[in-house]
């Protein structure tokens, strides 16, 4: 595997040459600090740009072109990374050696064609496309409730602190959606091109010098961005935790617990808390939470803890029956207390390390995983896979106990069905 960075002034191209896969992938990403009011329009923009363009006035035209390009795919999406937002455009395509002459140039050009020649006339996006996308996003926002666990997470984080980016709903907000117009979206578009930091990652068994030249020819943006995007959210600790119940039309009740991770250092954030999390509750069917809630007491089918690195939070989710809430809370507390007391064996810690290393090895088997390896190295100084494996091996039981003491309860939230 050969990794290279080409600095093209207004953006960087990161190439990863590998013969591991028969398909290739290119990700064009724009990053900036996250502003709540811009979430909805950003989300609409990424959809708009991949939906039609001057050359392909309807989504169907793009769909046909993609099929002709050996079933390639392009998609746009926005993600939140702590305090920052990332607008990504991903192209997946087949290695040119299976395809017609000229394929590489054609397929690489497509996303740039869509990005740089949008379906805009008289400073307005095409209204037909605009309405289709607006409807879809509206429906996505409205359907949040269909997924009980997603809805429970969103509600609990909002109740914790509605002004914290951790609580923002990245699909968008209806009130913001109503105010977006075909012309305001053009401003959003220019903001992305002019103000956002841009990186392009490309992976595959390709002649990378040729690829870089192709991109430079196609993608000419002229703005220099030189500022830092701050990733980490500072979620305030609560002296007394919240405890809230809400109801909805559900068969099963959802319990969410939110914990602050108080002042972790870099080593703890990158390594120790992940091992803590596996032993406590994310380690599949051998974790403490799983053992106490599911195996020993048959209280649930799903229980799991999640580490939200850039939010400094640890979340616990379980689908339970609300009559068992107090029993569940007791067992969860028991598990957390055991972590503080060091009531876990060296073998458990060792198994957690093996699980992490295993998941790193799995990430190395996908294009996206390998891109992320280099991306997070760039964004957050996260060491590369090999280095991380070495560091994980060094973590001691004492390290994990120290982290356990920094886990502070913030919110208990129960989403229950109507009384049955």
């Amino acid at each position, binding site marked *: 595997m050969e990794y290279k960075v080409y600095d093209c002034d207004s953006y960087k191209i990161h190439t990863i040459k590998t013969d591991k896969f028969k398909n290739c992938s290119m990700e064009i990403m724009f990053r900036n600090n996250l502003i709540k009011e811009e979430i909805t329009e950003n989300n609409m923009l990424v959809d708009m740009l991949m939906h039609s363009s001057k050359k392909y006035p309807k*989504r169907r035209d793009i769909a046909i072109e993609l099929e002709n390009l050996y*079933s390639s795919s392009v998609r746009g999406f926005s993600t939140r990374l702590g305090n920052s937002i990332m607008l990504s455009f991903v192209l997946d395509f*087949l290695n040119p050696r299976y395809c017609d002459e000229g394929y590489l140039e054609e397929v690489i050009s497509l996303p740039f064609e869509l990005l740089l020649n949008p379906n805009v006339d008289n400073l307005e996006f095409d209204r037909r496309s605009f309405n*289709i996308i607006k409807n879809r996003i509206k429906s996505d926002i409205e359907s949040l409730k269909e997924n009980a666990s997603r809805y429970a997470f969103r509600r609990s984080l909002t109740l914790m602190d509605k002004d914290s980016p951790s609580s923002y709903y990245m699909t968008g907000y209806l009130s913001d959606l109503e105010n977006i117009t075909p012309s305001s979206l053009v401003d959003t578009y220019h903001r992305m091109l002019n103000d956002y930091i841009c990186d392009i990652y490309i992976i595959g068994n390709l002649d990378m010098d040729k690829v870089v030249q192709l991109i430079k020819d196609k993608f000419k943006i002229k703005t220099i961005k030189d500022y830092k995007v701050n990733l980490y959210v500072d979620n305030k600790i609560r002296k007394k935790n919240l405890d809230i119940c809400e109801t909805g*039309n559900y068969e099963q009740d959802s319990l969410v617990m939110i914990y602050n991770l108080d002042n972790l250092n870099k080593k703890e954030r990158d390594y120790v808390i992940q091992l803590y999390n596996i032993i406590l509750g994310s380690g599949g069917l051998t974790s403490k939470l799983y053992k106490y809630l599911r195996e020993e007491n048959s209280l*649930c089918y799903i229980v799991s803890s999640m580490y939200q690195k850039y939010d400094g939070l640890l979340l616990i989710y379980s689908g339970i029956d609300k009559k068992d809430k107090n029993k569940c809370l007791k067992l969860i507390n028991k598990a957390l207390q055991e972590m503080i007391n060091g009531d876990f064996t060296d073998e458990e810690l060792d198994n957690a390390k093996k699980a992490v290393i295993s998941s790193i090895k799995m990430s190395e*088997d996908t294009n996206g995983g390998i891109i992320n390896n280099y991306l997070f190295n760039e964004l957050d100084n996260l060491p590369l896979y090999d280095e991380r494996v070495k560091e994980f091996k060094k973590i001691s039981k004492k390290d994990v106990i120290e982290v356990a003491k920094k886990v502070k309860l913030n919110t208990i939230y129960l989403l229950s069905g109507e009384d049955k």
Partner: protein
Amino acid sequence: MQEIVLNGIDEKVLYEVLDNGLSVYMLVNEKVNNFYMTLSVKYGSIDTEFKCKGDKGFTKVHNGVAHFLEHVNFNEGEGKTAHDYFNKLGSSINAFTTFDFTLYEVFASSEFTKNLNHLLDYVETPYFTKELIEKEKGIICEEVKMGKNNPGQKLYYGMNNALFKKDKRRNLVTGEVKDVSETSVWELEKVYDTFYHPANMYLVITGNFNPYEAIGIIKENQANKKFSKFKMPIRKKVKEPIAVNIEYQEIEANVEIPKVKICYKMPKSIFGDYTQIELSIYLSIILRNNFGATSLLKEDLMEKELIVGLRAGREIFQDVVTIELLVETKYPKEIIPILKEKMNNLLLSKDDLKRRIRCNIAALINDLDDIEFVNTDIVDQLITYGKIEDNMYDLYRNLELDKVNDIIKKIDTTHNSTVVLIPFKEK
């Protein structure tokens, strides 16, 4: 060991059927770090009535027994489960049950021998106690309830119930809470003894490993175990009429925008001599073209803001073919007749076909990167066709427009059901 060369894509599958009947299929990818192994048992949720040679009548078990068995099969005695063992290896394991089979999987990057041996050992060694089974009931009941929270599942089973009168796909794979609560030890033991035999299993391994070492390990493992003769159970046949159970039904669910599913049911025999796989490919191409991303109808309905999404699919069963259309719309009454009209006017041009052939061949190559997908695809083929199709490449390349038109002409839209998920009414 024998070799199946997959034409046109430069790959081969190695396979062998062991003396005890276990079928082993392997496809190696030396470029990746990991290996993925699955042991599939041909026993699914619909197999609730069966008999073996010498039995007087059919044995009937509760719905959900296949899934229940999948849950408790992880137990290994002395308070240990298979999870404990694999966790020490850093492997990730899981299992799932479908209408037709039960699959146990291991995903790992090291300790190939231990992983392989233990997968065979824990699935092939039953350990049922009344206590463990009672304990599992609470867990499975919560899983059933979790499923009921999901509108997608509500629509899926709502449709199966409308479409079928007798077919056991009307029932949840998990069974209802009542089925789970009533399931007893003898049912699990009976099913295990009848169906969990190597001759009724497929072991499929994909990813980075040495297949010659693998077959050695498997043979040694199996030689160390005693199996009685496979009982060759016969599943009770259900005669499903072509008429549907319910033609139109509305169901309240946690949705904001109604979801509509229209399903057509027709006898497979009307299509004539096409093989199951040919029929499946042609129908898929026709439906994609008329209702998918490149369809004019979809574009038109989206532009008029009448729908937010549209998909189509087909399923081919023993004697029955079903075609389903799935749409999200605020105007079900207006949209349903439009879609039904389109079903009677399906189109596919020469260019469309050429494009679809190119896509299918590209996918054939693309999919090889994903060892999980490759494995699942092999299992699906084994369960559905009983063998690996070694010539997908030529099958795709030789698709003909005349056959497309012939199949379009034969699609029979007489028998159909429509199910609409609507938002809960205010109380």
